């Protein structure tokens, strides 16, 4: 659906996007993740053929964004950053206006507007002026606009920014729903959002792609070598004694925790799951155990790791 090759965008004195390449297949929901100023919006603007790249090629559904912009625009539903809307128009009129601009006939645009109003839950507000709607509803109007001409690809630039938790939840659910029928590319700097809605993630920093993988694969790739953490009620010496001779354990760290408990972190020698082993030991020694986990690195940790590594490399 999207093929990006060596895409570069330079502004005077600054390189916003620095030779990125990636592909997105039909039906994927891909998250574009990166701190502010990473080049997400720039990339999306180029993809939607709002502005040209300095070099590199972008093809959407087989059409080049530079040479066949109208073909590309017909196939893309693009919601720009901050979701700009004509705030003096009524919801239905606005969607109809947008449908007509996107080349739908009068009858067809009426049908499609009915459909997206229903799909995005705008039935109650269809006659209201957009300027008087809450941010959550406005966001839905933006989504409805992106959908109205049945595009193959939906590009959403920070679709959930500034929403309250309720609105966040409903807009995310809507995006997830869209992912069943459309290819979706969305940008965000909220990591949980990617975990919740996307099948694949592209991490962008300073105009470069740092990582591109499925969310689960990324997590396992960056997980902390299967480390296990347990809180055990025993003296540090006794704990050290009990685990020292086990061949599976590579190293052990003990820290005092609240009460008489110790927080024990065990690293396995070859990536085994140490949890059953720890539980077995605890039972044999008849200790008290109040926690036993294998901490999973969240996308957030991966992101921080990646972007910091990059920063250090740059210095």
């Amino acid at each position, binding site marked *: 659906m999207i093929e990006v090759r060596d895409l570069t965008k330079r502004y005077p004195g600054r390189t916003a996007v620095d030779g990125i390449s990636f592909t997105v297949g039909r039906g994927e929901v891909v998250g574009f993740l990166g701190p502010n100023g990473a080049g997400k919006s720039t990339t999306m*603007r180029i993809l*939607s*053929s*709002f*502005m*040209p790249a300095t070099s590199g090629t972008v093809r959407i559904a087989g059409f080049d964004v530079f040479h066949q*912009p*109208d073909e590309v*625009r*017909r196939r*893309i539903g*693009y919601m*720009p*950053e*901050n979701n*700009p*809307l*004509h*705030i*003096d*128009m009524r919801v239905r009129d606005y969607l109809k*206006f*947008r449908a*007509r*601009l*996107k*080349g739908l006939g*009068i009858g067809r645009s009426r049908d499609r507007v009915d459909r997206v109003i229903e799909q995005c839950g705008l039935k109650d507000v269809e006659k209201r002026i957009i300027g008087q709607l809450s941010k959550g509803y406005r966001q839905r109007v933006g989504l409805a*606009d992106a959908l109205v001409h049945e595009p193959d690809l939906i590009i959403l630039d920070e679709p959930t920014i500034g929403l309250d938790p309720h609105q966040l939840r409903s807009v995310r659910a809507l995006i997830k729903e869209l992912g069943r029928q459309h290819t979706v590319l969305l940008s965000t700097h909220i990591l949980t959002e990617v975990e919740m809605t996307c099948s694949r993630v592209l991490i962008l920093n300073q105009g470069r792609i740092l990582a591109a993988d499925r969310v689960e694969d990324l997590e396992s790739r960056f997980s902390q070598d299967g480390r296990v953490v347990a809180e055990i009620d025993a003296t540090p010496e006794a704990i050290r004694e009990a685990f020292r001779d086990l061949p599976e354990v590579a190293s052990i760290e003990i820290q005092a925790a609240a009460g008489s408990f110790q927080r024990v972190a065990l690293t396995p020698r070859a990536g085994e799951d140490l949890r059953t082993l720890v539980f077995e030991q605890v039972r044999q020694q008849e200790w008290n155990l109040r926690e036993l986990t294998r901490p999973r690195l969240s996308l957030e940790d991966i992101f921080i790791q990646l972007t910091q590594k990059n920063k250090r490399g740059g210095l």
Partner: protein
Amino acid sequence: MNVFLTLVRRELGAAFNSLTGYVVVAITLLLAGFGLMDIVERLNSDRTPSPIPEIFFADGIVFWVTLILTTPVITMRTFAAEKALGTYEALMTTPVGEWQVVLAKFTGSLAFYLLSWAPLIGVLVVLRQVTHQPQLLDPWAMCGVLTGIACIGSTFLSIGVFASSLTRSQIIAAMTSLLIGIGLWTMSLRFSQTDTTGDRLGRLMDHLSVTHHMQDFARGVIDGRALVFHLSVTFFFLFLTQRVIEMRRWK
């Protein structure tokens, strides 16, 4: 074509949905009211008064003040506001051509401008009824006046649309077109008042003088050269606007 009409409708809608639209209409009416006072005064004092269109559109400054003040306000919104709001990005990522957008914004502005003059035409018709002197308001002269309002308006509006495409600030857009408008008017006044017999440059400037054009129009003389002049200037500025949009896009 249908998309073009949709865009024009949107432009008109935006004008009527905003306060500025009504301010423009109010200014036009207020100034027309002053003009009317002037006309009544002249009709009462002169034994052989000039025809009304000449008093109003050629001799007086009311028409010019109205034109110069309202056209920048009508056009300042066209591109600048959309850019500031970000809807410009949404607009330009639909399969709508640049020329379509430029022409629609211009046409919308022109339609609103002509609508804002409509009440004045009513005023003149009433005046004709009241004075019982049909020769003061000749239908041909009225046609000339309408052509003049449209033609000269087009020129000023195209300048305004162009100014709006240069910036994302409506104030800067309005100030720019106001300055160009005042410049054009004062230059025209200056050259239409000089004695132009013989001097080639003087004659040329006289042909280019917009106030001179309006004097002709108000007498019911629809001069082809004036029409061509205003159409060309309008097209020229719309062409520049399209170039600006294209350039900004591919920068």
